[in-house]
């Protein structure tokens, strides 16, 4: 597997791409690109497509970027992959608001067809699918399961596009175009060994709350335990309403259990009317717990060590929750986190997301990543 990578802080898409890919040799099969909305996503896509006309290009806008140990805000990171052991097919799901089961299945069918996958007899373990989806569409919870269903057991992993916490417009990149209200899929037939990583650094506590008033569509909770949500949240944390800012909030997401599994509901915003917006679906009657915080760096180190074993993975493609990024920034741990990635991965590309997807579920406060290894025996 040949990997080229580069980054840029240039504000102009064309110039940023030029800087990032300077010195690349060869023609990649797939180009992964994550770019802050400070520059035109459309310009980035067009510039990449011009430079790599044979490559398939996928990516999205971000709330932060990762590249092989370095983290940026306002940057552009790009990685080119070429390997005879990887075959790629990419497709766009347009108009997330309207797409239904049949539409998603048709898109996935087109990917299957291009890779010659016979639904009746294929071995799902040889495939994975990357998904980048508009993070402001609110459609992740509806569309992701449809994609996962259509993939018939193929691993689905990805993230929601960000816009540097502006919460105005997020876009995905497919080929020479950037699209809002859309998702991009990259299905891969892999002759290489691959693994999915799901890393969280939260545990639950015994403190429970019931969501008693909420607007499900906007993922906004008005009341917890029958009282204004922000007040109740502050009370259980032992702080005043005014102290509900920044790191305290990142470190105490709400969680809930289903079938003994813990699911995180991260807080996006605390509004002046004491309501709380979440990055993930909520509903009335849901009993949530207050999450407890683990130290981010040691927890990540442990999970990456478990993933990599004795030899670093060749490429890690990650979607890191924006709240984890904010916590890392608040604790000034980007360098430490970057060092961990560098230690465990020969190459890493990723972005800070407004949500993560893993196997049909839209989740929060998580790092999901796909690890590829080019071991000779995996050929």
């Amino acid at each position: 597997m040949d990997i080229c990578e580069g980054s840029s802080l240039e504000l102009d898409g064309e110039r940023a791409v030029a800087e990032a890919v300077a010195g690349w040799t060869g023609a990649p099969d797939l180009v992964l690109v994550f770019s802050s909305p400070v520059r035109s996503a459309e310009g980035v896509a067009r510039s990449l497509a011009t430079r790599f006309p044979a490559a398939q290009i996928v990516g999205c806008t971000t709330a932060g970027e990762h590249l092989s140990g370095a983290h940026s805000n306002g940057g552009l990171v790009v990685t080119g992959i070429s390997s005879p052991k990887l075959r790629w097919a990419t497709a766009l799901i347009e108009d997330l608001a309207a797409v239904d089961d049949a539409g998603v299945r048709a898109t996935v069918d087109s990917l299957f067809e291009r890779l010659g996958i016979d639904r009746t007899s294929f071995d799902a373990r040889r495939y994975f699918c990357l998904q980048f989806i508009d993070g402001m569409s609110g459609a992740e919870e509806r569309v992701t399961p449809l994609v996962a269903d259509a993939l018939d057991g193929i691993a689905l992993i990805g993230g929601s596009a960000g816009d540097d916490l502006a919460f105005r417009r997020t876009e995905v990149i497919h080929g020479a175009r950037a699209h809002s209200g859309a998702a991009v899929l990259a299905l891969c037939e892999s002759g290489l060994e691959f693994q999915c990583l799901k890393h969280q650094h939260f545990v639950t506590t015994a403190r429970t709350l019931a969501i008693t008033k909420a607007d499900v569509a906007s993922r906004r909770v008005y009341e917890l335990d029958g009282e204004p949500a922000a007040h109740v949240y502050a009370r259980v944390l032992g702080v005043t309403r005014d102290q509900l800012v920044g790191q305290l909030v990142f470190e105490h997401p709400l969680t809930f259990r289903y079938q003994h599994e813990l699911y995180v509901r991260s807080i996006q915003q605390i509004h002046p009317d004491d309501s709380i917006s979440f990055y993930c679906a909520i509903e009335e009657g849901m009993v949530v717990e207050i999450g407890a915080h683990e130290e981010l760096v040691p927890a990540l180190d442990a999970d990456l060590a478990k993933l990599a074993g004795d030899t670093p993975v060749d490429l890690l493609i990650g979607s890191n929750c924006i709240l984890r990024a904010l916590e890392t920034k608040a604790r000034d741990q980007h360098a430490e986190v970057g060092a961990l990635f560098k230690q465990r991965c020969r190459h890493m590309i990723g972005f800070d997301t407004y949500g993560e997807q893993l196997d049909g579920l839209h989740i929060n406060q998580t790092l999901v990543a796909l690890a590829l290894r080019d071991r000779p025996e995996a050929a």
Partner: protein
Amino acid sequence: MSDDRDWKARALAAERTVDVLKRKVVDLYNGGGSNIQHTLERARVREAESRRRRELVELRNAELVRYSARLEAEVAARTRDLQVILDNVVFGFLVVGPDAKIRGFTRSCVELLGTDQLAGSPLAPALGYTATQATTLELALEQVFDDLLPAELTLDQLPHAAIGSSGRSLRLDGRVIRSTEGGVDAILLTISDVTALEAAQRENAHYRLIVQLLRQRDSFVTFVADFLSLAAAAREAIAASDQHLARRAVHTMKGNAGCFGLTDLATLIHGLEDSPNLDPQVIDRIEGELAAFLTANFDVLGISPNDHPGRIAISSRELESLAAATSLAGVAGWIHDIRRRPVRALLTPFEDMVRRLGERCDKRVELVVEGGELRVDGETLAPIMRELGHVVRNAIDHGIETSEDRGDKPIPAQLCIRVSEVGADYEIVVEDDGRGVDVAMLAKKAIAMGVPEADLSTRTYDQLVDLVFVDGLTTSGTVTDVSGRGVGMSAIAAAVRRGGGSIRVHSRPGRGTRIEIRVPRTPPGFRARRPSQTGLAYSG
């Protein structure tokens, strides 16, 4: 008051909470209401389904791995076996380059050819070839590498046999190895040790012969007696300086030996009968060969050359009849009866002979024998019957055409031997539906032998046909071990003459030939001598 309000507010909140939770519980009990639960449940089901599929795939893959491992083990075992065979048993492989030198070889070649100096050596000496054989081999190799003719043709020109220095009989089979451009890069020679195979084939042929002889033991006993008496006749002729008569006897011995499948004996005679002067030693050698065969197979055939195979066994009933005879005529009649034997016992095994000759001459012939069960006077007919093989051989060799040349005529060709009693005579007819006698060729040969051309020009077609009885005259251009010496027809004519009979040839160009023999049924000693027939028929 504020505490009261606080408690009141908290109580209302608790009440709202309880209401919401109640609604939720009711919804859950009624199977709906929670999108999140639905989504998570789908994910759980999906995961379970994926796990099930993965397990299925793993099972299938594990089965494939096991199957593949078993196959590999089988292939490995077969490869080992093959290698053992290739290296140690009867086959060897040689790769020969355009320079006629050995490029590569399997270990077994060393043993087969009896030399380990093979790498880079010229092929011909490795095969133990003489200089002439080496030249032939090199020319044939050259032709293969030239690649101008189809490979199967050029490969067929390569010598197929060699004798290894270890004395083994080796068979060689070539295959062309082509380069990526398509030219002949090398020849792969498969060398097989056929020593055991040839021995087995010889043994098999021998057993087949013995079985055949046992089936026709009566005929074979007659053959042996005839053979010995012909040998005696040949000796007498040599003593009387009648080389011609001796040669004719030897020729008949050869023909009859061939008819019974005694090919070694026939081949020996074939090699000896061309000697400028037949002498008693030649006859001894021929007789000795038959004697050796009979001795070697005495346990099975029960025939000894020292017996008197021609003697007649008499049953007690026949002895009683003899005792009852009251006159010389009665005794003569008794003797006549005793001598009567079925025609089939007198005939040589023509079925086998016709099959073998047909195969050798590439002709399809069906033999029909009529009157095989007719009881005839053996003394009278046996001398003629033993010469009948000449007529049959001539019919197949010269008369009957190959299938391609038969035009509209039926295939297989018909050859009929019919023995019957006609009045006071036995009639023996040998008839074929071949091309007839080539009188033009006969006339040409006759002229070459000194017959005046003018004499021939006045002859009719039928009279020209009778030239077949002239000693040494044949329509054949070449002498083969089947026929072609021009001796056979004169030999049967002589036998017929001796029996007091006549022989005629009726030929129809393109339609066939009919040889008609008539012999008086009464033995010469028991009848008044018949007047000689006249005309062109030969008679005694």
